[in-house]
């Protein structure tokens, strides 16, 4: 009796730290990769490189966290990549063109993201357009608008001192010099923690799962399904806004042409992390691990100086194997 209860509680998996046993196992593919690369190259397992891997995870990880929410509702969001860029461009406009102070830029990025997410949500919930199409249309519109607004050129943040600190600085490093974790990574973890909390502990999260599980039954329970769904898309959009800040800060510029293709990588991280594309189940922790697996893989193969064409082949094969291993593990656990 107690076993089942435990399993299902572990499955729901809130709190990034707890529920040790199963959580550790979920890391298996990741840990295996880490061990493999460490053995293959002495340059891999070094503080600087681990931090580089984490930093490489930050943007994709934040996007993946955002899209996890939408996927759990049974939807999909193809616009995350270009939305990130759009938010970065808007921040550029606010900070560089208008010269407003940094906090307003941050609010603009997250607000723009939330607003665009809300719009996608409106298309999906109210206009009943399939999420794939609604967000594909959004993706294209935002892609074009980023170019239009920026005048097809990067917007630099040279006039906003401290902007690069958002991603590159290290608050933790200032306190603990031995752990120079860049703020970008810290923001990823905070975002993931917050999203996880919302998902597991709040009504919004509960409805996220419920919508993905059986939307019609939720509607017939008297829930204003459309409003909640729009809320979830808006939240996801806001998270993309955070990703926009991170990438703009990292590149010290808003690159209007960037972003397409990032959606696939984000969705891949989500699915590798065990979230089902048909909705109703998924965890933020899984998504984080999925994003890390991808970053470790890319970094490790580069460190080994594998020829690029083979990197791609090996990445494809390892992704399949990692997910297969994960499926096996879960099946064994019942």
């Amino acid at each position: 009796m107690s076993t089942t209860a435990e399993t299902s509680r572990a499955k729901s998996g809130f709190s990034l730290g707890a529920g040790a046993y199963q959580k550790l196992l979920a890391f298996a593919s990741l840990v295996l990769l880490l061990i493999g690369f460490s053995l293959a190259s002495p340059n891999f397992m070094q503080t600087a490189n681990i931090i580089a891997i984490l930093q490489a995870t930050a943007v994709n990880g934040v996007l993946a966290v955002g899209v996890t929410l939408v996927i759990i509702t049974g939807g999909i969001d193809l616009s995350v990549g270009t939305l990130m860029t759009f938010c970065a461009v808007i921040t550029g406009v606010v900070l560089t063109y208008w010269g407003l102070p940094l906090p307003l830029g941050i609010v603009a990025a997250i607000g723009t993201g939330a607003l665009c997410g809300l719009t996608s949500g409106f298309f999906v919930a109210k206009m009943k357009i399939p999420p794939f199409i609604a967000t594909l249309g959004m993706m294209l519109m935002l892609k074009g608008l980023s170019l239009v607004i920026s005048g097809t050129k990067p917007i630099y943040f040279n006039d906003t001192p401290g902007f690069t600190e958002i991603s590159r600085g290290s608050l933790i490093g200032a306190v603990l010099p031995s752990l120079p974790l860049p703020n970008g990574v810290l923001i990823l973890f905070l975002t993931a923690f917050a999203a996880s909390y919302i998902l597991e502990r709040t009504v919004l999260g509960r409805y996220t799962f419920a919508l993905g599980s059986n939307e019609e039954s939720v509607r017939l329970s008297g829930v204003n399904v459309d409003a909640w769904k729009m809320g979830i898309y808006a939240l996801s959009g806001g998270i993309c806004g955070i990703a926009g800040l991170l990438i703009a800060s990292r590149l010290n510029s808003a690159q209007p042409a960037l972003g397409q293709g990032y959606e696939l990588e984000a969705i891949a991280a989500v699915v590798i992390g065990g979230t089902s594309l048909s909705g109703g189940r998924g965890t933020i922790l899984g998504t984080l691990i999925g994003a890390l697996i991808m970053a470790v893989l890319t970094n490790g193969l580069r460190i080994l100086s594998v020829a690029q064409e083979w990197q791609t082949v090996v990445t494809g094969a390892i992704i399949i194997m990692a997910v297969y291993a994960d499926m096996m593990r879960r099946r064994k656990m019942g």
Partner: protein
Amino acid sequence: MADLIEMRGIEKIFPGVHALKNVDFELRSGEVHALMGENGAGKSTLMKILSGVYAKDGGTIRVGGNEVTIDGPRAAQALGISIIHQELSLMNDLSVAQNIFIGREPRLRFGRLDEAALNRRADEIFAAMNLHLDPRTKVERLTIAKQQMVEIAKALSFRSRVLIMDEPTAALNDAEIEELFVIIRRLKSEGVGIIYISHKMDELKRIADRVTVMRDGETVGTVPAASTPIGQIISMMVGRSLSDEAAVIPDLSAAPVAFEVKGLRRGREIRDVSFSVKKGEILGFAGLMGAGRTEVARAIFGADPIEAGEIFINGNRCHIRAPADAVAAGIGYLSEDRKHFGLAVGMDVRANIVMASLDRFTNRAGQLDEKGMRGEAAKYISLLGIRTPSDRQEVRLLSGGNQQKVVVAKWLLRDCEILIFDEPTRGIDVGAKAEIHKLLQSLAAQGRAVIVISSELPEVLRLSHRIAVMCEGRLTGILPGGGKTTQEEIMHLATLRESAMEPVGEPA
């Protein structure tokens, strides 16, 4: 004569549930062997083992005297065993005929389909069942009851030696049940062995030869159906005897009208339906399959659009455009189709029970009160006797009847002023059914207006203070409840076609 099927010492363990403990069961050819037991006793699990859906964890199965291993549905089919599953499992996007013959399509050369032959054969089966259904209709357009008939047709099409029926009549009306029994008798005479699972006790006497009772995953015993009193079977099932009281109709002459519907219409499905329910009253809805009762309920609840009609609550006009409006206005609706409209089966019991009442467990910051929800869930699990290892068990892993109890719990917890229950006791065992009836009566006694739609006339008769009868989308009459109305009177109104249209009873 050797037993057709002989199951010995069958064991099945699910994580956290020991579902079958050393179960024995046998079936002779040409008999109808009823399998009875409370919700979650293990009936479906045993049958799924016999039909190759689950692998057994222990025990032996003999078919025609030879020990066999049944490692999949195909193996069971090869042995001449077919099954009608308790949970409908049809392919919604395919037509009726395509569903029936999935995997056995008549083919032309090069893998081409012979669609004409397919539809012809389906037509033949329907004719034998006395069922009027176009084989080309898509399954998603059918009501639950019709879908159930398709499942039955599919099982018949195998022409098996052994036919397992897991609650085939849960969704059926008396007329269809009668048709089904005709078919069962015919199959029986052809030497087919039938395993019959049902929670409708009256069916035992009408169709079964022997009865095996299960409790908590164990066999209690096998008795002849004809000579064993129902009461004894019930006490074998639930471990005690139940008393069966008729409804006591309270005096509601002074009670105010809580809920009124005027001139509700939509196309051919709902044709000018008007009625009212008083505070403290239970209004039963009777009618044949397809009479439109579900449609009326869904329309009131805002789940489907309406063309015309007004709804009044406590005398005030209410505009209901979506279920959210209805719930806000104090109306609750328990759907007849729990799998599609009642439950999020991938979520746990607790989450499902609180689904309609989440605002009650949410603080200002949107944070959920997990402890409070656990408490409420525990309360309803024990109140309704929901058999589950914990309130965190996923609902899809519960037995059918226990899933139904979860939906009931959801609406009891929501605590609405006006409650519409569509087939609330579908698939629920006798003991729990009595509990639910008592609950409905106490809800009414607290001054709530309760509408119960049921295809079981005895249930309607036992519960209702008044009985509304529908036929082809029209309300054909409202009859008094209690002992004053007979089944024949209801059937008369339920078959009152448009030609003979003249409402009887009190004016609607």
